[in-house]
């Protein structure tokens, strides 16, 4: 019985290792391993690159691959936002993605007004803006 369990455990470990090893090795290029173009595109991330998890490195490489196909304005935005985005906490990134997904559901004609609405929101008096986002005090108490 013990042998049977040991063998099963080995099987599970082997399959888990098989699934993980190529990912880490293949998905973990060091900064020096990136192509010159990728380094150029991802330059704002250079200082943080070594601290990025393999999956995030792969994602950034994916974005660097899309970069040449972007409009100049979009390229400029990516360059500007890259560092800010990378320095958010995982929770903040998750929240931003959730909000993005929700906003992306609005019809295209409404989506065009978003920039305008953001400007309107920012022009609101601080107390009005605060009223729209009450501090999450009850959640903290629960903790």
């Amino acid at each position, binding site marked *: 019985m013990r042998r*049977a369990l040991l063998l099963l455990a080995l*099987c599970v470990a082997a399959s888990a290792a098989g699934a993980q090893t190529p990912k880490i090795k293949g998905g973990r290029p060091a900064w020096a391993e990136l192509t010159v173009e990728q380094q150029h595109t991802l330059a704002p991330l250079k200082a943080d690159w070594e601290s990025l998890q393999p*999956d995030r490195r792969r994602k950034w490489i994916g974005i660097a691959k899309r970069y040449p196909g972007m409009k100049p304005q979009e390229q400029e935005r990516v360059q500007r*936002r890259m560092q800010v985005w990378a320095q958010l906490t995982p929770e903040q990134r998750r929240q931003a*993605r959730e909000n*993005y997904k929700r906003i992306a559901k609005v019809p295209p004609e409404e989506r065009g007004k978003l920039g305008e609405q953001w400007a309107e*929101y920012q022009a609101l008096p601080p107390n009005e803006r605060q009223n*729209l986002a009450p501090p999450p005090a009850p959640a903290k108490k629960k903790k």
Partner: protein
Amino acid sequence: MNEFQFGDKIRHILNQGLSLDSRKAARLQAARELALARRRPEPVGVVASAGVWAGNMVGDFGGWTGLSLRLLAPIAMLLIGFGAIYTWQQNQRAAEVEEIDAQLLTGDLPIDAYLDRGFQNYLKTRAAEE
């Protein structure tokens, strides 16, 4: 003509005898031999092998021989299957995250807008008003 009648007709013709030349007969013979050679071996005593398996499981569970391939192979296949599904799901998720991030980084709205709860509520109230 239904299937039965058709079969009956063929049987009748065959009973009358076929005049096959030697070449056709040789080809038929060769085809039959090939078919026989390719035939899958019949399951030799399913009950017997099940008995052996059960015997191995019950009588000799602790021993190495108890864990025959019959037990390990399906488990291994299952693990490989789960591994493949897991990898596929991870790849799908990674692709989705990359797509969203690319849009967040290039979109009209700054990242702050997606992090601002007040703005999210502002949009909701605006949508409700309209």
